[in-house]
């Protein structure tokens, strides 16, 4: 059978770049294959996708060597428009790829471009909306949909063009757990329904691996591993590049089937091999909360509504000095609204917010910022300069800090986020993770007592996510009180002490983060993703493994104990 996609010695270097984005790529992909492409940020995954639909070299300029053949067409000679009828591409950020003002228009846009007759367009739109579960959303505005719905809409728009090949560039990255599940299901449905080739780029392996036939791992523009799911899983981990999901690694350690993706299967396989005994339950860890009794932030019965839509409903909270608090919850549950009240970007309609003894409603935001640092989700929204040094100085000037202190403060802040080496760089040259850290550093120059961070790890690879959490933990150790909005329960559980879960504008949970993780019903009710380790612990609870186990190493240790114990039986 003819290949769907063939790369023959492909290298590509973006115009003006120092390094090749792709280096000597050779591969073929057969029709109907479902392929996962993974690897750290900057490893060339997006460039790889752009080669397939002709954006490279027709839109992104640079030097392309070798040949990319898509369904017998050389992409160098084809036009993007022509390739678009063969290759459907969905990008990471749903907001940036929706271009019209209603869902129907959006889905019809592709077929219209291809010159499909009107009646056929209407048929395809209906079909695409039902395949992506968006029936009933026809007249909604794409930008007012939830992230999951937006991504589903982008997929529907591609589906309606009836391409032979689907290329999805991190389609799940910007979504909350509920949205991720929805979109993943849609993706698999779409590929299976039409028996089409699907190439999916993704970092979160836990969710995607169960569905794919083949895995390609990339690093620094090269393919470092390429094989069937079994082969790649058997090949083990590659440090900093490819880490298999916790359950797979444990399955490997204890000699179980490598294609173990669910805790249930792991437990069933393990008990099938030998009956498990009990281990002595270790004592619960002493709660680390209440390190200080000084209340720093107080919400007193706060109500707030956007245009009549209630966003906060009677929130009562006290944050103490020195705490590291994770704020969790679905998209739209009121997390960001809550954070915005702390710095006075929003004022309560009823009740009051007191920060460091001052009523937020009566204090101008720029005065509050002397005490509170606030990082937005998208660093591009808060960067105001072209150079790193200028950016760092800007806040200092705004607050009339003595210029003699500038250098010391800048050096210290950049050191905290490990960016000292780029102090003279242009901001355009920084990567996504670096920009996020720069935005954080520019806030740190003012030595804030409180740090509020809105989803610092959206769309970052596991390595960058860990770095950011390490920085935040370090700042907290130095005495900064930190409130952090995040979707990553697994990281929150290992870094934060306290968790607050918001649900429809109310505080659904407020307590030690380990208690939250152990409270399965609470987690499910708020669409919080259970970390792999927790899922396993839930299965193994009856054998004495303590429910607050969260670290992989800890679990491995307990499992070993358990296996030894049952060996002695």
């Amino acid at each position, binding site marked *: 059978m003819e290949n769907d996609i063939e790369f023959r010695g492909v290298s590509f270097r973006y115009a003006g770049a120092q390094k090749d984005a792709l280096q000597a790529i050779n591969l073929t992909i057969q029709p109907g294959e479902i392929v996962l492409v993974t690897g750290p940020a900057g490893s060339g995954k997006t460039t790889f996708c752009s080669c397939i*639909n002709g*954006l490279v070299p027709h*839109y992104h300029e640079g030097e392309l060597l070798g040949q990319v053949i898509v369904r017998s067409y050389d992409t160098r000679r084809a*036009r*993007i*428009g*022509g390739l*678009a*009828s063969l290759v459907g*591409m969905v*990008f990471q*950020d749903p*907001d*940036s*790829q*929706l*271009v*019209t*003002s*209603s869902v*129907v*228009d959006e889905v*019809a*846009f*592709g*077929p*219209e*471009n*291809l*010159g499909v007759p*009107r009646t056929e*367009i*209407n048929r395809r739109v209906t079909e695409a909306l039902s395949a992506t579960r968006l029936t009933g959303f026809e*007249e909604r*505005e794409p*930008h007012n949909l939830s992230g999951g719905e937006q991504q589903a809409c982008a997929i529907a*728009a591609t589906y309606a*063009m009836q391409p032979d090949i689907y290329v999805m560039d991190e389609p799940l990255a910007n979504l909350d757990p509920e949205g991720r599940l929805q979109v993943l299901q849609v993706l698999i449905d779409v590929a299976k329904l039409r028996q089409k080739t699907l190439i999916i780029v993704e970092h979160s392996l836990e969710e995607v691996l169960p569905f794919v036939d083949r895995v390609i791992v990339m690093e620094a523009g090269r393919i470092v591993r390429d094989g069937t799911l079994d082969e790649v899983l058997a090949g083990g981990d590659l440090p900093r590049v490819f880490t298999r999901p916790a359950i797979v690694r444990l399955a490997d350690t204890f000699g179980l089937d490598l294609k173990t993706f669910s805790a249930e299967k792991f437990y069933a396989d393990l008990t099938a091999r030998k009956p498990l005994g009990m281990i002595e339950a270790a004592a619960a860890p002493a709660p680390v909360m209440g390190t200080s009794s000084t209340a720093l932030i107080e919400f007193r019965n706060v109500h707030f509504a956007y245009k009549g839509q209630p966003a906060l409903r009677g929130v009562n909270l006290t944050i103490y000095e020195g705490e590291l608090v994770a704020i969790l919850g679905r998209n739209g549950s009121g997390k960001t609204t809550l954070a*915005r009240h702390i*710095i006075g*970007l929003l004022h309560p309609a009823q009740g009051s917010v007191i920060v460091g003894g001052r009523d937020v409603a009566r204090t*101008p*935001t*720029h005065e509050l*910022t*002397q005490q509170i640092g*606030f990082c*937005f989700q*998208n660093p*591009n*929204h*808060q*960067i*105001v300069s072209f150079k790193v040094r200028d950016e760092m100085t*800007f*806040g200092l000037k*705004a*607050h009339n800090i003595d210029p003699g202190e500038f250098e010391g403060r800048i050096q210290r802040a950049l050191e905290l986020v490990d960016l000292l080496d780029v102090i003279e760089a242009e901001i355009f040259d920084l990567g996504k993770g670096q920009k996020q850290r720069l935005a954080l550093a520019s*806030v740190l120059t*003012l030595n804030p007592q409180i740090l509020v961070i809105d989803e610092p790890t959206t769309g970052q690879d596991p390595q960058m996510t860990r770095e950011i959490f390490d920085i935040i933990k370090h700042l907290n150790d130095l005495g900064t009180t930190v409130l952090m909005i995040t979707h990553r329960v697994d990281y929150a559980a290992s870094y934060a002490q306290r968790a607050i879960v918001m649900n429809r504008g109310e505080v659904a949970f407020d307590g030690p983060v380990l208690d939250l993780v152990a409270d399965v019903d609470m987690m499910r009710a708020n669409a919080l993703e259970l970390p792999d380790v927790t899922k396993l612990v839930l299965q193994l609870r009856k054998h004495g493994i303590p429910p607050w186990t969260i670290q992989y190493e800890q679990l491995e240790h307990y499992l070993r104990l358990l296996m030894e114990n049952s060996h002695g039986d």
Partner: protein
Amino acid sequence: MAIEYQKGHGFLHRLDARTKLLLFVGMTILAIVVVDPILMGLLFTTLYILGRRSVNPKLLNSNLRVLIVVFLTFAIFQIIFFETEDSHFLFYLIPFRDWIPVTVEGLIRGLAVFFRFFSVVLAVHLMLYTTPPVDLALTITKRDQSPRRDTEIALTLILGFILFVIAHLVRAEDIRALPFDGWLRTLVIFFGALLAAYLFQKLAGHGLPPEMGMALTLGFATVGLLSKQTEIIMDAQKARGYDVKPRNLIRRLQVFAALLLPIFLATLERSQDISVAILSRGFDYNIGARTYRRQLKFQTQDYMVLAILVLLLFGSLYLNYLQLGNLMEQFVLNLLNRQ
């Protein structure tokens, strides 16, 4: 305040986008032709009542309220500076110095000017409030490869006839001065009107190339998003400790400059995203052969609205022809003369 499309199912919403565009053009011509304040006031009121039924009256009023001040100023200028030799003096605006005389004619024209401006602006508002921008862009985009012959001929004939009548109503004296007599004169005028109509029809029927039409459509869809983005950026700046509205003017300029860079970058980024997105969805596949899901369709109500508009236009032209264009002024002057 931005005039954004409001979803709804009112009478105006149900009209074809082209009808509303023509309604706006028609109101503009009427505002030029009609001089009588009562007639203009009636037109304005009719349009306003029509608008209230389709658009949230609160929104409509809040937008128009601002404009009252502007148009009153226009009207006052008209009242103050309108002065002809035989105008009827009423009083001086600044009494003891005998400065700025106010005349009857000035007052009446001022009132008319007020309604004329207001009617045109109201027509624009109603068009934008009740028509999705996409439809508006479509109305001025060339779509069909080959326009149908018969509709072309019909349009030319209708337009030609209208022009023919207008010519007789407005330029009657010039026509009489032409060096032809009787039926020959009529024939010349008729063919002239027909030729003008044909040219106009060709030009207007051609429309924008589809690339530009699509650019308009995509632009409209982006406006809301960009303003949302600007808001986020302003909040981000506030959160970094900039006093976004400082009293010091120089400081305020600095703050404004600090806002410009992220807004500019966000816009640039957005436009790049859009080009990648539309290219990936086959925008350059074959733009000339592009099809459209949206269909513009004239219905009975559209023909009715257009017929009324044409009647009003002819009616007011005819009134002017009969020297009855400014009934109110004549009425008031008659009253004054009788005393």
